[in-house]
């Protein structure tokens, strides 16, 4: 039971995160693609509780205006703009079902509520972070599910039947691990039509990566199957007249569950990260769609790295998510 509680420590934050990300439109103050050309790389807006005279006030912010140098920003202290809950904003469809225009947080005109600052187009970083998580987390899931699915099928086949099936599959796995897949990905992008949405393109590429990644899980699963197959209870069940599918389904595959869960918890972050590499090669999620990978990729720009600390936020989120996943992997 202590084990279960430890797993809860990982599951609850993950569930909360997924909830936030699924309902991104509601939690995000703005649309992820809305550009604010007067505010590129604006720092997070400070939230105030006391006005100029030192009187307590409900939380408010000031409008950001370019400062004298033209390179930074300062607060326009003349007009406090209150932060409000459940405000009207850009309309959207929640979960693709309900049309609404309510957002959790908003602020009076003309200020903008930029809790995590803006990127180079003046787009709200928080809104992008929430939306980006949707793609990144889903991509991680999708690719990990594909890798594990194929790995489970091939690995258990190889381990259970052995002989030439095993030899063929394992040689294939070695080959798969050595090949330069970037080429295939470059080629695959070239074959896709240009007019499909960036998200679709990306998901197709992610599925490809996931499909390619079966080799490692397959080897692990094969090992487990190999030892599970030798167990006496498998032999005993054979003695009771059980067929291969019964043995695989009831005794052998349940043995691999531990490895599968652990692998899933390790592969999901790995694939979320794979997107950063894809962005590096221009195969990541295309503008204006955000993802944690392409947001993190912004840090490769020297000026972003050195000047705008709030642009590290996707990195921080990734590290937290990874810690939670690794914790989960260890406790499973």
């Amino acid at each position: 039971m202590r084990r279960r509680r430890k797993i809860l420590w990982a599951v609850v934050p993950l569930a909360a995160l997924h909830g936030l990300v699924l309902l991104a439109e509601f939690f995000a103050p703005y649309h992820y693609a809305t550009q604010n050309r007067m505010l590129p790389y604006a720092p997070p807006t400070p939230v105030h509780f006391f006005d100029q005279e030192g009187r307590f006030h409900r939380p408010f912010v000031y409008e950001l205006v370019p400062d004298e140098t033209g390179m930074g920003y300062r607060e326009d202290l003349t007009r406090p703009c209150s932060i409000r809950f459940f405000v009207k904003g850009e309309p959207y469809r929640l979960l693709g079902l309900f049309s609404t225009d309510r957002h959790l947080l908003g602020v009076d005109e003309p200020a903008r509520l930029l809790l995590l600052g803006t990127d180079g187009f003046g787009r709200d970083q928080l809104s992008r972070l929430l939306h980006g998580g949707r793609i990144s987390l889903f991509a991680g899931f999708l690719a990990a599910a594909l890798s594990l699915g194929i790995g489970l099928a091939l690995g258990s086949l190889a381990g259970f039947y052995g002989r030439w099936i095993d030899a063929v599959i394992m040689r294939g796995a070695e080959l798969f691990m050595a090949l330069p897949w970037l080429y295939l990905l470059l080629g695959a992008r070239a074959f896709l039509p240009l007019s499909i949405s960036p998200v679709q393109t990306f998901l197709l590429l992610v599925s490809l990566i996931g499909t390619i990644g079966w080799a490692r899980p397959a080897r692990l699963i094969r090992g487990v199957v190999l030892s599970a197959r030798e167990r006496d209870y498998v032999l005993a069940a054979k003695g009771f007249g059980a067929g291969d599918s019964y043995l695989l389904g009831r005794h052998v595959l349940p043995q691999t569950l531990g490895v599968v869960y652990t692998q899933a918890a390790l592969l999901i972050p790995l694939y979320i990260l794979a997107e950063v590499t894809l962005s590096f090669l221009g195969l990541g999620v295309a503008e204006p769609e955000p993802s944690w990978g392409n947001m993190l990729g912004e840090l490769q720009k020297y000026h972003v790295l050195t000047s705008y600390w709030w642009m590290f936020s996707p990195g921080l989120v990734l590290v937290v998510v990874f810690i939670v996943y690794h914790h989960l992997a260890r406790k499973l």
Partner: protein
Amino acid sequence: MAVAVQVTHGTILRTLVALLFWAVFPLISTLAQSDGAAGEVTLEDPLITNHRVGRKGGRLVTALRAEPSTFNPVVALNIPSQTVIRRMTANLIRINRKTQETEAALAKTWDTSSDGRRFTIYLRRGVRFSDGHQFDADDVVFSFELYLNPEVASPIRDLLVIGDKPVRVKKIDRFTIEFELPEPLAAGERLFDGIAMLPKHILKDSYIRGEIGSAWSLDTAEKEIVGLGPFRMKEYLPGSRCVLERNPHYWKYDQEGNRLPYLDELVFVFVPDQSAHVIRFQAGDTDIIDRVSSENFLILKRQSRRSAYRLRDLGPGTIYSFLFFNLNVTSGKDRQSLRDKQSWFRDLSFRKAVSAAIDRQGVVKLAYRGLASPLASHVTPGVARWVNSELSVQPRSIAVARDLLRQAGFRWNRAQKLVDKNGAVVEFSIITSSSNSQRLQMATIIQADLKELGMTVHVVPIEHRALIERITREYDFEASIMAFGGGDTDPNAQQTMLLSSGYLHFWHLGQTQPSTVWEAEIDRLMKEQVRTIDPVRRKQLFDSVQELMAENLPLILLVSPHILVGARGEIDNFNPAVLEHPTLWNVEELFWSQQRSE
């Protein structure tokens, strides 16, 4: 211990070599004299430069974006290779990067025939290669033979083939050569700037063996790379740097009679990452920096008050970026949707509306942080001599754009999407090179701009080679953002893009006949200006070309980024220019005004 032994060995070896050298030296010198007895000439007419007289000594370090791929001028193409090679080689006539005019180099003077077809070039007498070997007309003839031989497949050959016929080269005497162009070519002498003179005595053998393409590669011994430039190769360390040293036989002197260059060494370190360039410059590891991105320029500027370097914004360079639509004629069933969309792209009102909707100031502010200029003509303000200053930048106006679309028969549906006459929703994709973040940013800005017109635009970053293949070979794209520029500023350099038959006529390639009236007119004007020697008349002709381009919008011009450079404060004679290479074009004149404070 092992190290110590090695050192001793090395010392012994060096002593031996030195002894041997001194024993054999008299012999060598007699041989050399007898060999060159026919015409060993001392440098009679060095080029005397006109700049502040400097002091000798010191080392200049600069970074290259990539490792040079070869040291061979015959095959070199990329900028890193050419940057290094150009410091080690010289040409007959060069284009002054600052004035953008031609000036004498290895040629002391030259005559041009009245029809502009024949050039007689008089070489400086007594010029020597960096290994001390005499340079004369034979080397010039040899060099041109190399470049022109179709088997060598040198990219330079294309410069020397005019109207399908190659330039003819004839040696008159030891220091005089005659060049004959197959057709008249205005400002033909500018051609010589791109052509490095090669040592016949070194490269003859590999040329005869048919291996000239792989001569002077990265594994060639440093001593074998010989040229006429201010520096010569001293050391090349794969993956990290190459070090050039002063060419002791250089043919330029300053006004006080000091032989140039001033610097002892010129070091190129290979730094593949843009940010690392800036970091190393900030850290003082490199002395000169060029091609600084606008963001990094601002970072450097913020710190320049504390640091010992100065930064220069040279204004717009020769690069012009543009959005263009696919106007190619395509066949095949799978291109049907493209052909449907091309009915919009071919509609001038549609292109004008797109142009009117683009927020060029926004592009300047967001993608270049203010360090770019919006464009009116495809000739940038950086090419002051040729730009048509009558043309003005189109101001942004969504209202104008909407009017244009409405008049052309487009409407807006209930969801505020733009639809054409046939009721098809206007939706297209813009492909850009995924490795160029500014172009990606421009595409993103344009995407948002055109959304205001009700157009749905997909921005598709594709990897560079795939992009080129789609545009130049498969014609499989709808719209793209690209940039052109660099190279010579003369209108002749733009023929390949402007002529309807040119292979850089991207919006519509492979035309045997001009497909539109205005393309035919541009063809006529361009062909006329090539034959026109009178510069004023040429300018008029080229102005008309620019007008036609601006009216018909095959290229929807965006902005021209500024050329941004920096150098350590103690470097004197620093005279950067917008043309390649912006900071090192006059490297022989650069000097350290005082010992570096280290």
